[in-house]
């Protein structure tokens, strides 16, 4: 018999970009925790991810999820000789803003604020889009992320020059490319496998 998606007719969708915490509801059944094998646990990498419906849906293909998670962690957390954590989160939030992933943008805007302590600058990106970013380094990161997010990619040597002109080293430029490219992956999964939902006030 054909499987059926899960629908949430009563759930209001968030309609603006926000730094508030949002929930996410899957349109397909996540794997139940009781069904996890060792192979699935390897795929999750972090045991705590068994609480996330998003990762419990993706773990249905554990080999892909594991490789993806390890790619993600190195791109965002390996700061050796490279871009600051906050600036990687700016690349992720800017990419999410351009693709229109309200959920992803909320998570990574919060991370950008946590690491930079510049909540208002982050909010300007959410409210006004890429052109709302004023700090020259952040603006170069956001504009490069936007160019790389266009299909076909509008990214070229001029974007490299702009990043270098804003003071980024070659390795920092690779961190921007990796961060923006990775969020093209993440945005498409979040946008197409489920929907964001307002969290009830605690």
């Amino acid at each position, binding site marked *: 018999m*054909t*499987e*059926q*998606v*899960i629908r949430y007719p009563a759930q209001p*969708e968030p*309609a*603006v970009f926000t730094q508030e915490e949002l929930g996410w509801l899957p*349109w*397909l059944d996540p794997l139940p925790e009781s069904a996890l094998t060792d192979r699935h646990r390897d795929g999750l990498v972090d045991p705590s991810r068994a609480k996330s419906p998003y990762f419990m*849906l*993706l773990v*249905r*293909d554990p*080999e*892909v*999820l594991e*490789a*993806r998670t*390890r*790619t993600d*962690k*190195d*791109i965002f957390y*390996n700061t*050796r*000789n*490279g871009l600051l954590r906050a600036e990687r989160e700016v690349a992720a939030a800017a990419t999410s803003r351009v*693709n*229109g992933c309200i959920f992803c943008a909320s998570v990574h805007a919060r991370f950008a604020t946590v690491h930079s302590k510049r909540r208002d600058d982050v909010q300007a990106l959410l409210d006004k*889009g890429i052109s709302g970013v004023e700090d020259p380094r952040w603006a170069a990161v956001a504009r490069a992320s936007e160019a*790389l*997010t*266009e*299909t*076909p*990619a509008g*990214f*070229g*040597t001029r*974007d*490299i020059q702009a990043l*270098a002109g804003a003071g980024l080293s*070659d*390795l920092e*430029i*690779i*961190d921007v*490319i*990796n961060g*923006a*490219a*990775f969020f*093209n*992956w993440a945005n*498409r*999964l979040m*946008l*197409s*496998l489920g929907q964001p939902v307002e969290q009830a006030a605690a």
Partner: protein
Amino acid sequence: MTLDVLDRPLNREGVAVNITAHWPADWIDHLAGIEPGSPLAALRAEREEARRNAQRSAEALFLPAEETVFSRAERAAVGLFVAGLHRQAAAFAFYRDLLISQPGGLELEAAVIAESRRGLTEGPYGAYPDGPLSVENRSGPLYRVTPDLVAVLGPRLAAALSHAHLLVFHPRDATADHLQALLDAGWDTTGVVTLSQLVAFLTFQIRVVSGLTALKYSLPGV
């Protein structure tokens, strides 16, 4: 030699090839033309885990160890379609070679290339939920595989191409109905997860290649 006597995959020169042995060790390096020992290879080595796991992702998606209902030929066909939509020449050539080296791939090649050309547009576009962001709504074409092409590709692959076009160009338009269309065409939940990962992964891989290629031409001495 005629096509109907072939029982082994051929490369573009019509020579039988080993399905797995001739693929490059690192597809991003291959697609961006990054040579071992070059300055860019040294920079990539600073993010070795990301480099290695991007490659592991590619192999898990396109050359899975276990055959599933989502065949290698179908995976490569979606890869070729998505590379074509991105107008990325190196990726297009690569996934074309991957497709025709898979059993049944050669029969799909022409139709998939024609569809990727028919699907060309510019993204991202799409609509936001009604509200203040509605002023940012951008319209774009709705791609659908024609009924006669469904006969060539089969209903599962035809539905996969429609979904891939949505994910590449207007992901913010995605709804539960789009997943139901995949399920109705014969996909199961795990297959939808793998298909979604495959398309979304390619939008990453192709952008890394575009970015590194631009960086390569910006480095001194190139």
